[in-house]
């Protein structure tokens, strides 16, 4: 496997709520390899956005990291001081938020918002340098810089705003860009176009990307590596081709079968019975066991420990007690 840029080990994130302690991320292990597009897929509430916020050190109150570590390029992210943190955010890691269209200031021109972002991080640029850089990036996301720089957000379409946000995320040459459902509110043609642009940026600028999505199709199109989250746990991760051809975890296998496609036989598609667990009232043992057809007594008692194969596949399921067993086909 390639050299890791981000390593998440045993990360636990909790939100104390009036109704009890909510564990959004539960002892998660996750690696983002340098120079690849990694996707983190999961349904709403699976903890993917929370984990990404933790990587950016931007968990919203009252959430807190209750355990585990995050290293970025060898540095411990959790122990960064205030000054270091300011340099870490946006200069090392940037994020394109979900519904990024609404992340722009509605009463400021794009140009002024870009200058403001620059100023917050660096004093060494002149205004002309800043605008020139912005022009290049806007050109890169195939927008007309003259028009966009002088526009207010309301003058741009949803797809254009999303592309402005992507340009924004690249302003300070970060190593990692986190994209949280970057195309969810957009039409399929715009979505395909944005992924074209993202892949080009990834290739030309050698930027590592983390893509959060619930859409299996998007994963297949864009990602090199995939992690699957379920109820706060990273249940499986591996190479994208491998994951689609030979999913190991019963949840992954079922999720892939649950999505209607344009080509496969319709009769093979099946929903997953039951619904995702309530995070305030988690079942004991493996969080997926109430919906799993392979569940046996052990699954109800013990959350399985993840096993790692030499080929870079990882899975947490009692069907696979050791790395050798991962090679065998257990799910259909």
């Amino acid at each position, binding site marked *: 496997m390639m050299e890791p840029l981000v390593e998440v080990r045993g990360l636990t994130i909790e939100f104390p709520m009036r109704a009890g302690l909510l564990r959004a991320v539960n002892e998660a292990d996750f690696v983002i390899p340098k120079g690849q597009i990694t996707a983190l897929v999961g349904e709403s509430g699976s903890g993917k956005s929370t984990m990404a916020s933790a990587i950016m050190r931007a968990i919203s109150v009252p959430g807190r990291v209750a355990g585990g570590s995050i290293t970025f390029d060898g540095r411990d992210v959790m122990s960064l001081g205030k000054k270091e943190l300011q340099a870490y955010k946006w200069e090392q890691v940037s994020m394109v938020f979900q519904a990024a269209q609404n992340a722009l200031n509605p009463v400021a021109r794009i140009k002024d918002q870009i200058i403001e972002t620059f100023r917050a991080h660096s004093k060494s640029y002149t205004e002309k340098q800043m605008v020139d850089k912005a022009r290049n990036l806007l050109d890169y996301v195939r927008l007309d810089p003259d028009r966009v720089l002088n526009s207010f957000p309301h003058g741009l379409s949803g797809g254009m705003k999303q592309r402005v946000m992507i340009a924004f995320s690249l302003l300070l040459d970060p190593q990692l860009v986190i994209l949280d459902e970057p195309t969810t509110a957009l039409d399929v*043609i715009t979505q395909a176009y944005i992924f*074209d642009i993202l892949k080009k940026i990834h290739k030309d600028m050698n930027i590592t990307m983390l893509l959060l999505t619930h859409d299996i*199709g998007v994963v297949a199109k864009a990602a090199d590596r995939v992690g699957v989250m379920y109820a706060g746990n990273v249940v499986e991760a591996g190479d994208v081709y491998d994951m689609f051809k030979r999913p190991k975890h019963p949840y992954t296998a079922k999720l892939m079968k649950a999505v209607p496609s344009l080509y496969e036989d*319709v009769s093979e598609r099946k929903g997953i019975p039951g619904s995702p667990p309530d995070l305030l009232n988690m079942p004991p043992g493996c969080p997926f066991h109430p919906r799993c057809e392979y569940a046996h007594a052990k699954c109800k008692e013990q959350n399985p420990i993840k096993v790692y194969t030499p080929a870079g596949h990882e899975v947490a399921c009692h069907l696979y007690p050791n790395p050798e067993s991962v090679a065998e086909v257990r799910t259909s």
Partner: protein
Amino acid sequence: MNARNIEFEVEPRQRLREAVRTESSEVLMRLDSVSMYFERNQGMFGPPQKVGAVVDVSLDIHPGEIIALVGESGCGKTTLGSIITGLQKPTSGKVLYKGQEITKLSGEKANQFRGDVQLVQQDSYAALNPMRTIYQSLSAPILQRKIVRGRKAARARVIELLQTVGLTPPERFLDKYPHQLSGGQRQRILMARAVSLNPKIIVADEPVSMIDVSLRISILNLMSELNRKLDIAIIYITHDLATARYIAGRGRMAVMYLGRVMELGGVNDVLSHPKHPYLQALLSAVPTPDPEIAKAITELPLRSLEMPNAAKPPTGCRFHPRCPMATDRCSSEEPQLRLVGSEQTACHYAEEAHELWQRKMADIGAIKSV
């Protein structure tokens, strides 16, 4: 409805005649050149701008069939849905229900129409009164319409409805409030409410787009079960071609662009033999959950990505500024729907476009016999 299954060898003109004849014999609802223009004010001066949300759409709905209306946002699919349910009166054209124009229905007949055509909305939370229990929400319409009389009969009917939509044990749901249910369960309640009046048509507007991925298929299955068992025609409105294919496998699909129907035919014909270049671009843009196919489709067959302004639609074919095959003819002459192969397409060069597509798909190796 058998018109779709006629063999390929039959001469197109004859097939069109046959299609018209068989369809007219059992039409539940007929949309006849329906258009819907909205007026948008242009400040204090100047005339209001007219925006065509639906332009000259004709469509026959037969008893018990499934039609998927697909297209991107702003294509007019939702407006067409609200015309079918009678919520909006088209600015021109006629909507005939069982042979009678719906705007001219009155009294008992109008009432009957409102019960016969039901709407299921996207946002199940907004569509249910948060202050009412499920029993209250479901019993009100059947009591009001006197489908059942008395509280006892209403309760029994509500329990039966909950069973029909797969909410078991039904007693557990009767006294719940909408916020106590999951999105999938609420969507089932909406289905139960729609079914309770014994409708002939259900218009479902993006019913699964707000539901978790793992639960979507079960809602789609429920809809096709209601269609099959209760013989209710379903108009499934969506932007998602894959779910449309899933639910309407036996039915038809209408692909809309800027208010017009660009392609209409049996779902499998439309999806595996797309003729219109717009539909082809749309299909290429859908991310397929298979990395080998998804990564093989790299460039969209489109000249421009910007959707034109609906208030000033392009001359001729509405798609021509974005179409890779467009010629001078396309910018001057608006193509009408015509029969090509086994579907109707509004493109001057449908035959050539189809051939190009088949070649491209053969290259990708994704072509599957349907």
